[in-house]
């Protein structure tokens, strides 16, 4: 922790950056912090409650954060994938952002949960995560961490749904997506949903019905999952933000499974590797094409 604070202080003092995007303690657990004064750096924390993906704040669409100036951002291995995505897709310049990588042994699902990390409260993505630190960083801080608790079989539900018959699946999703009220929290918090004007907000024509009925919700969530195929960094923020507690990660992980099995593509924090949609191989599988 002290290492992180000292580094942040130095970066601010030496004018290398204007703002540190990190975490701080508040009334209800940990929350994102925006530190602009070296004197405030002691507020910075990093522990297993730091579930938020701060890369979302780097998007050019966050004009209020951008206005603070050149940022340094605290990133876990999973967050680094989002930073790589933003670089890959020309949203930020690598040189314009200082990346403070943190070693991470897993985080809880609820940042207000101060109980120790256990298989009961761990964020599901962490159980299956084998990356203790990012490969993309300028500075790396923190003690080496052990592998987090919990079972690595988080995609069991995915396989379960795949094994259902089509009617069961449709019924399941009508039930789940029927709960969506289109608050778009999933999109707003997503580090990779950075469009200036989302397709769901486009009205001429309105490909995606804005009404929160299942028909509009299917179009929205299917399209979002497609747009995130090979881009979703699996940070779980959409699911955490969803006030209707819809397991949205199932859709993006299905897309991830699809690009992995079809094109051998896995999202990494290497910005130089292109996304699978937008590239192709002459001999890509086409078993579904007559």
């Amino acid at each position, binding site marked *: 922790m002290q290492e992180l604070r000292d580094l942040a202080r130095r970066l601010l003092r030496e004018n290398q950056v204007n703002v540190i995007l990190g975490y701080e303690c508040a009334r209800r657990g940990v929350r994102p912090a925006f530190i602009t004064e070296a004197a405030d750096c002691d507020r910075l924390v990093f522990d297993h409650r730091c579930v938020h993906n701060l890369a979302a704040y780097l998007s050019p669409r966050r004009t209020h954060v951008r206005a603070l100036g050149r940022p340094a951002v605290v990133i876990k291995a999973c967050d680094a994938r989002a930073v790589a995505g933003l670089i890959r897709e*020309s949203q930020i310049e690598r040189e314009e952002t200082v990346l403070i990588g943190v070693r991470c042994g897993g985080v809880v699902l609820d940042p207000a949960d101060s109980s120790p990390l256990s298989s009961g409260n761990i964020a599901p993505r962490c159980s299956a995560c084998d990356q203790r630190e990012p490969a993309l960083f300028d500075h790396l801080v923190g003690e080496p961490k052990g592998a987090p608790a919990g079972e690595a079989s988080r995609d069991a539900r995915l396989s379960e749904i795949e094994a259902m018959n089509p009617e069961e699946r449709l019924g399941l999703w009508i039930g789940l997506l029927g709960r969506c009220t289109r608050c778009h929290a999933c999109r707003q918090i997503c580090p990779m949903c950075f*469009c*200036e*004007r989302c*397709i769901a907000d486009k009205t001429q*024509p309105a*490909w995606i019905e804005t009404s929160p009925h299942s028909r509009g919700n299917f179009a929205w969530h299917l399209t979002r999952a497609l747009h995130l195929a090979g881009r979703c960094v699996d940070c779980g923020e959409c699911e955490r933000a969803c006030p209707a507690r819809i397991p949205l990660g199932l859709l993006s992980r299905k897309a991830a499974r699809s690009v992995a099995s079809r094109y051998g593509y896995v999202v990494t924090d290497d910005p130089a590797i292109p996304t699978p949609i*937008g590239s192709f191989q002459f001999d890509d599988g086409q078993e579904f094409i007559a």
Partner: protein
Amino acid sequence: MSRIGVFICHCGENIGRTVDCVRVAHNLENVPGVVHSIDYKYMCSDPGQALIKQAIRELQLDGVVVGACSPHMHEKTFRKAAAAAGLNPYLCEMANLREHCSWIHEDRERATDKAIGLARFMVEKIKYNRPLATIRIPVERRALVIGGGIAGIQAALDIADGGREVILVEKEPSIGGHMSQLSETFPTLDCSQCILTPRMVEVAQHPNIQLLAYSEVESVEGYIGNFQVKIRRKARSVDEIKCNGCGECQKNCPNQKIPGEFDRGLGMRTAIYVPFPQAVPNIPVIDRAKCAFYRGKAKGVKKAVCGKCAEVCGPKAIDFDQQDSFVTEEVGAIVVATGYQLYSIGKAQESETLRGYGEYGYGAIPDVIDGLQFERLASASGPTGGKILRPSDGKEPKTIVFLQCIGSRDRAKGIEYCSKICCMYVAKHAILYHHKVDHGRAIVFYLDIRAGGKGYDEFVRRAIEESHALYLRGRVSRLFRNGDTICVHGVDTLSGEPVAIDADMVVLATAMRAQPDIASLAQKLSISYDRHGFLNEAHPKLRPVETNTAGVYLAGACQSPRDIPDSVAMASAAAAKVLGLFSNELLEREPLIARVDQLACTGCFHCERVCPYGAIERKQLKDGKGRVIKIVAEVNQGVCQGCGTCQATCPSKSVELEGFTDEQVYAAVNAL
């Protein structure tokens, strides 16, 4: 509210027989936005077109839907008619009621319903059509020709004679290509070099042609009328300006025993060499892999191991330190004439799909040669001075077996196409052999004889009847050395008898293949190629010398196996296309291209990555004070070909393809 006119064509009985055109017109009349809906016997006829023009003028139509044949047939016709009546041509669309309806259905009721549906799609779509203006872009009226074989030479001369500048790029030290290696040409038996060399010299001397031999295209940017081509000028180690072509360097080069490429390994050349005496330009090049100076340097020997050529060079043209250099040329059109290579029967193949010929010894038998080697033997300027002599012992072969379709039409070896020229040149070889070797026996194994062309079949008959070549229909199963001779085992499939021949020499008519590095050139030019590597024309019948990248044209065997007359014809056709393009200062293009909504664009550049043409550019969007707000995509109007892949890929649909915008497609789908 729109003012749309619907015009349903009976096409005589073609549509009217199966589609109730009157019902279609009546039905469409009730569609909101339609103010006029009629049917007529022949819409494309003059009176039919007059009906459309009259309605546009009198009813102030702002959209015209013609329900008739395929738009591929008459879209231009009706758009022109609309334009003549003062309506923007892009406000006219066609519904395909003939090819897609009346001709493929029998049930009149259902065909009529479908016709209504198809017309309805277009009525709804056209409500969102926008008037579009033809795009005009300036044309740089200079051409680049890639490849200095006969096709490239012809194209360059034709364009240059048409008064336009040409840059001719040839990767070898000399132009001339394969044709310069041939002895005589079928079916007239004129001497290849005699007809070619004057043209080569003409190229060298033409004031409008800039010849860049020993050079390759490094990169191509831009678009029709405005290409920027970067050309690598490979280091010759000889100063082209100083060199006077005296040949002293070659005479004095100590390394005289290098199998020469021009003679297909049958003759020798030096380390500093001109490929053949009539080379254009007549400037030698040092083969650095073979030259003692460079080999010594590579081994780290400090003192120059050799420098003979430099010593004897009067004008001091030898430049051992020469490096590759680059020039960038602005051109408006590019003709690709990169030619072909021959199938190698050896074990090693550069493609997994190809197989060598183990049954013919994988090329290890010295007196088994390919057709081009035979040309060199038969050529007066060749290694044997035009005498047919065996490579192994220099004896005159008394029996030569010619095998056709080596590689060609042989799926097992990876090539199923016909190489087209082999039947003819084998006949030529048989005739030449007959002329040169008295009592020589030519035996030809063939599968079919393909001799379509002026004087071609007569030529083959001449080989058989006058030169007494024995034509056996069948394949040779095996070749092997038997002492001094080569045992040829095959089957005469007409008699059904097995055949065994002791031959003194075997000549293989190996397949014509695409150039080995064609894929990389095709990528630089954004043109497509088939799975054999032959470049694709825009349309196999109607646009045979154009490619799908505007401004890039094809000539010769890079497109498919071709003989000299075909290559020359194609080259002249490509030149005509280029000159046509250059006849105007401004180029007109169909405006059906993509357009970016820069307010909505986020600059993720997925579009840039999927664009097959590199038409997406990055543009800084600035506020009133000149500060960069964001970097957005912009479509280069000259480069975009209108495929729309950008739009389907754009997550926020901030790029629209004119003519097929989201609103147009949405409206059509809405009419389901």
